[in-house]
């Protein structure tokens, strides 16, 4: 404490981008319905940024739950097109439940199971093996993956063989207006 006052460090409160965006009501959590796949059928879930949304999506965390005694692979895709039979998920909510009325995301969460056709467009940037009877939780990407209007972030659950598999996907993200 012999340093001059000007040399003293200043105290700051360290807020992460996800926490900041949650305070602002811009952070959302979406879960797919139960996904049934296996025996040559795949399943899929993702968030789509509509063309006219006016926001970018900052992707944070995914989780993949495997309710089955068999491991499978989840493929992470950027900007893939939704499968034809995709349905819209209703289990999407802001992480900040203190705002009334609750903010609604511009992004749309969709999912599909028992799909046979491969994904079109987009790129498969990495994959994860999901262990039996477990939930894989990704590290926080803290917005390093940014999805523009017309793009998407999605996960394809690959059939591992003959068995029937049950799984679900959870995705979290925040939205910022495009300046």
């Amino acid at each position: 404490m012999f340093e001059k006052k000007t040399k003293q460090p200043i105290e700051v409160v360290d807020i992460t981008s996800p926490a900041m965006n949650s305070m602002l009501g811009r952070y959302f959590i979406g879960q797919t319905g139960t996904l049934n796949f296996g025996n040559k059928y795949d399943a899929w879930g993702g968030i789509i940024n509509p063309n006219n949304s006016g926001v970018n999506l900052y992707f944070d965390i995914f989780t993949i739950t495997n309710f089955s005694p068999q491991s499978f692979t989840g493929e992470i895709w950027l900007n893939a097109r939704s499968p034809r039979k995709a349905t819209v998920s209703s289990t999407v909510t802001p992480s900040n439940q203190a705002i009334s009325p609750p903010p609604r995301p511009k992004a749309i969460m969709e999912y599909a199971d028992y799909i046979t056709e491969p994904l079109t467009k987009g790129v498969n940037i990495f994959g994860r093996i999901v262990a039996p009877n477990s939930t894989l939780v990704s590290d926080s990407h803290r917005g390093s993956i940014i999805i523009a209007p017309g793009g998407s972030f999605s996960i394809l659950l690959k059939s591992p063989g003959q068995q029937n598999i049950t799984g679900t996907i959870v995705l979290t993200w925040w939205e910022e207006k495009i300046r």
Partner: protein
Amino acid sequence: MKFAFLKKEKQPKEVIVLSDAVYHSYLGEYFLGQTDMITFRDSYNGWGALINPVDSNVNMFLNAYTISNFASTPLTAEGWLSSVLPGKAKVSTYFAAGNQSIAPSPVPKVKIQNASMVSRTPTGGTYTFVRRVEPNETLTKHDFQGMYIIPPGSSFALFFLSPGKEHVQTRVAFGWWEENMIL
């Protein structure tokens, strides 16, 4: 986020902290991608690597790697820095900029490559670390935050030792950013 019980001069400022990786993604300099499937068996090995070309004019900062072991036996992965890798390399097309809101999409200078069924081992460079990977598992190592810095003409490689008779399939993924070199 109020500190009403503190005197005004004691109220700390609130700051948003971005990690270096996120900051470089905002700048369009952060990339993610994976190798093609790497296969080997018997006395043959395989590898997956990030290779920074001699003329890239960027330094590569590694943030993350993952190894997916699709085999039913454990695998040994050796981490090699700046070595010369054996066999016929395949250049991956499975990559993208983390920031997809920039048009046209930024293209990385660093290449993701892999080789299957190679008979020799890396030469030169340094065998830096080793990882044992369980069967049917994805090993993830995140948040290096640029600890490994790879200059032009250098590489970060994961070299896989064949466990024996079994036909092994594995795949490697990377997250990294690139910074222009100051000339």
